[in-house]
């Protein structure tokens, strides 16, 4: 990976100057040509946001994403609640992508407290994270499809996602908001027939990917809508701080699972799909390839999963006899009362994860009390939203949904 040293600032200011020029010329030289479109927040193609687009004829000359409609003050809320109560909170913003988020948060808390999850728990976390990654990618692909008007792609994506959700339900007991990862381990062991069911589900997804290719990816109309649309150059992607599949579709090989392995990723052999083109089609394709990789990760993890505890001994030694009995019999972790009032020592901890849409960063500052002093939560969508400003100008109005869908931007996740 080569880095362009320096000149980033100039580049950005030049770019905004350029965009400004486009807008200026649009108004000054050609009179009242620009139409200002307010796409959203109540528009079938906007999601929980507003896209302000200035259209000259059919060409968008300027585009501003207007975010914040679903802001939930997660960072502030977490300062007023015990550490464990933030776990269900961090998984709220990113629908379907919940486990990577909880893993990141819990990793940061674990680092603060100096405990570590046992290997089996790490594998379980990895498996669930990859299941949600598949579901999350399907969600993104489905939204891309419906934005292009391809209703079958939408329904297929949501249908196939359902299989993954069913698998996760077997493991965790909830459909989407699992709250499965707790400091020191996970809450349940996998049921007896789980590996079997997972294998079936994965085979089903593999089978369906072939049809996906025929009906969606190779569909000439889909291809024409996505090829060479919203091309993101690698240099630009790096400078704008883009993350996740969008970054990898632009030819930058970066993935937190590889760069800074967490959980069981360093013991698993997988590849990161990288495409050169950086257009909307490449972004879609990289997601499909990542689904394939996730399938292989889950398979390996299921095969390699070690026996043993699913909760760290530092936690399990606090169990009372009844809890010990339940844990031994049903492999369900009861919480010792300490968990409700965790008091990590003073300090800071940072954790990164590769969530479905990209890198998420968790930074906790503890002042030694039961609540975090500060919790910083950077989500991938928040980093990708800038793409609206840089990718859309110069394209046609009909490309706004195509680009929006292809960057898999999810407003609640960005607004947090």
């Amino acid at each position, binding site marked *: *990976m080569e880095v362009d040293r320096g000149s980033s*600032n100039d580049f950005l200011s030049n770019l905004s100057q350029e965009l400004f020029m486009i807008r200026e010329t649009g108004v000054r030289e050609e009179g009242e040509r620009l139409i200002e479109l307010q796409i959203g927040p109540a528009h079938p193609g906007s999601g929980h946001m507003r896209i302000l687009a200035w259209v000259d004829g059919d060409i968008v000359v300027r585009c501003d994403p207007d975010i914040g409609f679903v802001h939930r003050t997660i960072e502030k809320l977490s300062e007023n609640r015990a550490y464990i109560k933030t776990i269900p909170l961090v998984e709220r913003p990113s629908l379907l992508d919940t486990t990577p988020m909880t893993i990141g948060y819990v990793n940061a808390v674990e680092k603060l407290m100096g405990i570590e999850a046992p290997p089996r728990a790490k594998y379980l976390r990895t498996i669930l994270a990859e299941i949600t990654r598949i579901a999350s990618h399907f969600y993104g692909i489905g939204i891309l499809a419906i934005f292009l008007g391809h209703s079958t792609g939408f329904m297929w994506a949501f249908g196939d996602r359902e299989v993954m959700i069913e698998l996760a*339900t077997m493991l965790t007991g909830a459909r989407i908001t699992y709250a499965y990862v707790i400091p020191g381990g996970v809450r349940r062991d996998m049921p007896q027939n789980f590996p079997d069911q997972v294998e079936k589900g994965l085979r089903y997804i593999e089978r369906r990917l072939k049809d996906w290719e025929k009906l969606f990816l190779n*569909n*000439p109309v889909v291809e024409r809508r996505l090829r060479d649309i919203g091309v993101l150059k690698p240099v630009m992607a790096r400078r704008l701080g883009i993350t996740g599949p969008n970054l990898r579709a632009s030819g930058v090989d970066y993935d937190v699972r590889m*760069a800074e392995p967490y959980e069981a990723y360093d013991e698993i052999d997988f590849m990161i799909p990288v495409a050169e083109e950086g257009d909307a089609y490449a972004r879609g394709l990289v997601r499909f390839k990542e689904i394939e990789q996730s399938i292989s990760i889950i398979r390996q993890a299921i095969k390699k999963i070690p026996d043993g505890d699913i909760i760290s001994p530092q936690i399990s030694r606090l169990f009372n006899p*009844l809890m010990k009995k339940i844990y031994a019999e049903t492999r*369900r972790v*009861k919480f010792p009362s300490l968990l409700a009032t965790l008091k990590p020592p003073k300090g800071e901890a940072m954790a990164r994860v590769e969530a479905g849409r990209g890198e998420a960063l968790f930074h906790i500052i503890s002042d030694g009390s039961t609540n975090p002093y500060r919790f910083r939560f950077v989500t991938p969508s928040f980093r990708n939203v800038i793409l609206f400003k840089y990718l859309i100008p110069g394209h046609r109005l009909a490309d706004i949904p195509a680009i929006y869908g292809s960057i898999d931007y999810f407003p609640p996740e960005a607004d947090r």
Partner: protein
Amino acid sequence: MSLRIVEEEMDPEIKELIEKGFDKTKVLKVSLPKPGAVVQRNVDALLTGFKYVVKPMRLTIDYPYKAVEYPEGYRGMFRVDDNKCVGCSLCDVVCPADAIRLVLKDKKKVPVINWGRCIFCYFCVDICPVEAFETTKYHDAVFTRFEDMLTTLEEFTKRPEDYVPMRKIGKRYKVVIDEYRGLRYEPVG
């Protein structure tokens, strides 16, 4: 704020990582397919669509005439056993949604729940030191009034089926993951 990268100040580890990049064998080059014959691809797409018309494969279930029976351990509504409860109030402390409130009964604190706030995280169930909560898989609740979601102790000690209004639902089906059809629904019992 500058985006300039000052080389001297960089962490040597990060610097090394940037120079080196990843192990290239771990990078899967995705090359976009060459646009093939348009007619062929059109036909492929049409045939794939047609395949599903002839051989339908449904993932959905005909709710509410049929309904899904969730797997063992599904986190549904629950009740409290007020004889077991020792009034430690931990469930109230841990509840992330502030759904649990404690009421006094015979000088003992016992929890009641607000179903409108509960997010079914089961933290309360898992933290209870005496396993006073009894869980069920019941989840198709239909409350018509907001106040109904606030339970009294008398209600919360009953099983949810006994007091939660519920839509008439047909037969329950178990979800089975199927290699060919994705999801299959098998009648329970």
